């Protein structure tokens, strides 16, 4: 048989794209060289937020995705631990609070439910929070999901619609016809004949791109978190420091009064509870190639920064650290696009730390692109051709 579409990569993006294509009636094969959710999507945190997005398209996609998560949670029989816990950004200084206020005002003006809360309200919401903080941004609609369960859920629901899954399958070649149309994906499990290929391989998308002669500018950016023992509830929402924005968008020029270690590892406090009552404490981002080993100094800096905001963490045990790589793109926008040079070849990758958040909307938009429909909103800025155009003008 000839598949309508073959999706490469069974993480948060690939599984969603595969599911949404099945939903449109396409015949779909989903390939991964390992297990479902064995890459970045099981080595990350568990939230989908609009409150960490740049105003504009970034926030618009986040908001649409979070709404879509809600619909999926209601319609799927597979439980992916959807939890509308809300997100609280906390500010240490007047300077941060002023920046936070203007950010929240801008987002509220665009129609998003986001507001500034004072220190007293914040303490009522999070009684274990350090008592010297000045206030924060409260975004009630932000959610958490279990990221690898999201992948399993898309696969299981996709199978009901005819999705064929090829885990532990290695690709050796993507065969193109004489006129450079996608024809087949050659694997160690045999040739998979297909009309289209969608590259959803995240940090490994450049490797897949090379198979058809493309240079995809995605780099691995490491992220690391700590996990606590199961403990009594000390945190009720997703809580982050405003300085997190700084660690995410390196272009924001903003200095915090922190130790040299916290500075060196670019550590930004963020915390969340999980359904199993562990605490996830983060985080750090850095460029270390594909090295995902835990770094002791980074662990120390994360613990230090966590205790600054939640002093009671001092006595709670850390049982594990983990790290993964996020697919980083310089302009902080993912690629959700057809590729003009290779008819039938598409890319949905490069979401960096927003892959879990943007998984549902990316799947939906990609299915619309493949079906030749008008996308829910204008995604021209996510085109792959922006890189080649940038090269030409450079």
């Amino acid at each position, binding site marked *: 048989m000839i598949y309508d579409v073959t999706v490469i990569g069974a993480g948060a993006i690939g599984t969603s794209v595969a599911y949404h294509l099945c939903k449109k009636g396409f015949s779909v094969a989903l390939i991964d060289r390992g297990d479902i959710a064995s890459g970045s999507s099981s080595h990350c945190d568990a939230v989908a937020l609009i409150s960490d997005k740049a105003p504009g398209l970034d926030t618009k996609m986040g908001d649409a995705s979070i709404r879509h998560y809600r619909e999926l949670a209601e319609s799927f029989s597979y439980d992916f631990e959807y939890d509308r816990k809300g997100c609280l950004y906390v500010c240490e200084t007047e300077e941060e609070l002023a920046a936070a206020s203007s950010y929240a005002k801008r987002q509220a003006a665009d129609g998003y439910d986001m507001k500034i809360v004072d220190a007293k309200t914040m303490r009522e919401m999070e009684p274990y929070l350090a008592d010297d903080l000045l206030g924060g941004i409260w975004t009630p609609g932000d959610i958490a999901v279990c990221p690898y369960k999201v992948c399993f859920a898309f696969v299981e629901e996709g199978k009901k619609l005819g999705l064929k899954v090829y885990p532990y399958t290695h690709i050796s070649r993507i065969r193109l016809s004489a006129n450079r149309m996608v024809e087949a994906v050659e694997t160690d499990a045999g040739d998979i004949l297909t009309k289209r290929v969608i590259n959803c391989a995240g940090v490994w998308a450049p490797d897949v791109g090379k198979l058809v002669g493309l240079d995809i500018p995605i780099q691995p950016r490491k992220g690391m978190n700590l996990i606590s023992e199961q403990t009594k509830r000390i945190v009720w929402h997703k809580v982050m420091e405003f300085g997190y924005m700084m660690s995410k968008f390196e272009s924001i020029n903003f200095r915090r009064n922190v130790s040299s270690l916290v500075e060196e590892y670019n550590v930004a406090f963020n915390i969340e509870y999980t359904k199993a009552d562990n605490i996830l404490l983060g985080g750090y981002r850095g460029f270390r190639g594909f090295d995902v080993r835990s770094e002791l100094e980074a662990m120390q800096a994360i613990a230090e920064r966590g205790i600054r905001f939640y002093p009671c963490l001092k*006595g709670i045990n850390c049982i594990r650290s983990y790290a993964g790589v996020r697919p980083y793109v310089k302009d902080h926008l993912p690629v959700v696009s057809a590729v003009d040079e290779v008819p039938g070849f598409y890319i949905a990758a490069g979401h960096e730390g927003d892959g879990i958040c943007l998984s549902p909307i990316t799947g939906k938009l990609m299915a619309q692109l493949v079906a030749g429909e008008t996308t829910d909103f204008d995604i021209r800025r996510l085109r792959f051709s922006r890189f080649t155009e940038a090269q030409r003008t450079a």
Partner: protein
Amino acid sequence: MSSKGIPDDMLVCRCEEITADEIRQAIREGARDVTGVKRRVRAGMGLCQGRICEKFVQQILCQELHMGLVQTGRSTARPPVRPVPFGELARGCGNDL
């Protein structure tokens, strides 16, 4: 040993209270190694980080999938080796917290 060697109702992962039956279910859902089982049913995610259950999980994988011990893999080794309070961890960098 038959695949029934470990009874279905035996608690394999004590920390997360996961039975042999649940581990077999995870294997039926596609888990092929220790990490795949862990991700599907949490066996090995608790306080002891799989120190108790990993060998049992490996054994069940060997029996169900007729594979060798090496193919079952191991959970990724990650610090800390033992549970350590965040306060101790932070003090390690010379901070007086």
